[in-house]
């Protein structure tokens, strides 16, 4: 097990290297000179030159990359052009918020999706099944920002309720934190639930067709012993796969949801970076989320070996 994890981590090194090159390349493709774009049209040539020098933009690209990479290795993501503050501490602070939001959303999504997906597979072709399938199909077809906006609209029109604006730490003030996070988390949860529901249903349909399930039924077990005791673990690989992928999409989708609900998480930091042409911030933020995404996928692979001990590498 330990050796397997180690091997997986080693195999991630080229991917992580590739990610860093890609992020760096994309944000150095900026047409025109980033320094003069950042400073605007009124900047003096001296100011532009000074910024170019301080950002290292006068160096060759490879040197710039190595310099950036060297900093990253020591936990230095550079400084924001806009605020002049170090980027990594800000990323970590905001990631804590995004992570709370994402996990909250995931828990809401999973606790709706998995039971309903199972029910829909067990009662296949029943009215419950049809309802679940239609809802899931709708759920993957409505964009998350439309769901969020419609939720806000409905609540404010009919109940006159707006979520509080100030973000508070969950451990300090759970009630208020809940009020702040509940709408964005529900928004994220709905989109996630749709995908997980579809996958749970099809995974269970496949498993419930297998011989060992027939045997378990033949022994006289009741329905739910068979479903939970025998089918659940055997159906869980695709469900865990999609759940892991969805966590990654939630992290990406947090950009939109945070913007919609004015939550100062990592997504909004990246977006502000884009609006303010603060390229070091965008570069650091995008890289950070991609790395977290890679780690979540690693975690999913590790969970596989726990679910199905036959998986050996």
């Amino acid at each position: 097990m330990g050796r397997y994890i180690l091997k997986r981590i080693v195999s991630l090194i080229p991917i992580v290297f590739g990610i860093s090159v890609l992020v760096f390349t994309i944000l150095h493709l900026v047409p025109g000179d980033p320094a003069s774009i950042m400073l605007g049209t009124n900047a003096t040539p001296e100011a532009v030159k000074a910024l170019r020098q301080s950002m290292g933009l006068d160096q060759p690209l490879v040197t710039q990359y190595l310099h950036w990479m060297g900093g990253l290795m020591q936990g230095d993501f550079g400084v924001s052009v806009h605020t002049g503050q170090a980027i990594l501490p800000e990323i970590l602070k905001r990631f804590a918020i995004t992570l709370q939001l994402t996990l909250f959303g995931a828990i809401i999504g999973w606790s709706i999706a998995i039971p309903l997906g199972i029910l829909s597979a067990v009662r296949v072709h029943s009215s419950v099944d049809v309802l679940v399938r239609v809802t899931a199909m709708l759920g993957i077809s409505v964009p998350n920002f439309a769901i969020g906006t419609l939720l806000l609209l409905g609540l404010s029109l009919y109940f006159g309720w707006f979520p509080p604006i100030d973000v508070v730490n969950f451990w300090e003030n759970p009630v208020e934190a809940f009020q702040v996070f509940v709408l964005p988390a529900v928004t994220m949860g709905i989109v996630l639930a749709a995908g997980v529901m579809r996958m749970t249903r099809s995974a269970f349909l496949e498993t419930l067709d297998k011989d060992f399930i027939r045997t378990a039924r033949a022994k006289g077990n009741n329905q739910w012993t068979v479903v939970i005791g025998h089918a659940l673990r055997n159906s869980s690989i695709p469900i865990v796969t999609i759940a892991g992928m969805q966590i990654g999409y939630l992290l990406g989708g947090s950009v939109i949801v945070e913007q919609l609900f004015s939550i100062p998480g990592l997504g909004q930091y990246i977006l502000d970076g884009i609006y303010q042409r603060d390229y070091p911030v965008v570069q650091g933020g995008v890289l950070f989320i991609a790395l977290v995404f890679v780690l979540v996928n690693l975690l999913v692979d590790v969970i596989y070996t726990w679910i199905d001990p036959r998986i050996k590498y």
Partner: protein
Amino acid sequence: MNTFIQRFAQNKTAVACLFILVLITLAAVFAPFIAPHDPTQMFQESRLQGSSSDYLLGTDQFGRDLLSRIIYGARVSLWVGLSSVFISAAFGTVFGLLAGYFGKWIDSLLMRLMDVLFAFPEILLALAIVAALGPGTSNTILAIGIVNIPIFTRTVRGAVLSVKNLEFVESAKAIGAKTGRILFREIFPNVTAPLLVQASLAISGAILTESALSFLGLGVQPPDPSWGGMISEARRYMELAPGMIVWPSVAMTVTILAFNLFGDAVRDILDPRHRSK
């Protein structure tokens, strides 16, 4: 091909979705003739109105006709969806054919590259590309096109691997066919079915991403109407004119739903393993 059309005709969902998609496409293509007003014309005296005979779905904060904007918005969404999927499919096909057929280092190199692209949540990578290139419709198409290359490459590569050792490829080699001919005349026809399925499923994703980028103000730029941008603008006026949010959401959902169901149906028809239970 005839059996495909027959099976398609028997699939009610597929036919219904195709019908809706044709309607939307026609509306988009003939927007100037169908739309009751110019989508950017401002009727200052009738701002933020509800439905009326003049403005069927009401007006926005500048007094622009919502129905006309939604019809023109379909143009943008379909254009971005189709052209970005075309880019992804074209590159994905070439990469997938090369990786699958030649194997060895070409395969490793291309697939590792795809792994790297896959390591980003879609919207984030699209966002980064648009951040670098600048907002606008063509950059949005390019960004979404690049983001979806890996999924097409994997699909095509898988299909190539499953046929490249079959006898018809061997016999083509035996009669001395050139590599290009083997790739495009012998192998490619076997790749079209999974490619078509992937393309029909990818369009809805592309439209979703476009609307999200436009919502963030980084996709299609005002005053050009796009559904995502309309919803974004509408948030400030949501209590005065809820229709500004509701109607573009409905238009978007119907379109994406139709593409999703259509894609599922095409997959069921072309890929017997996926036949829904």
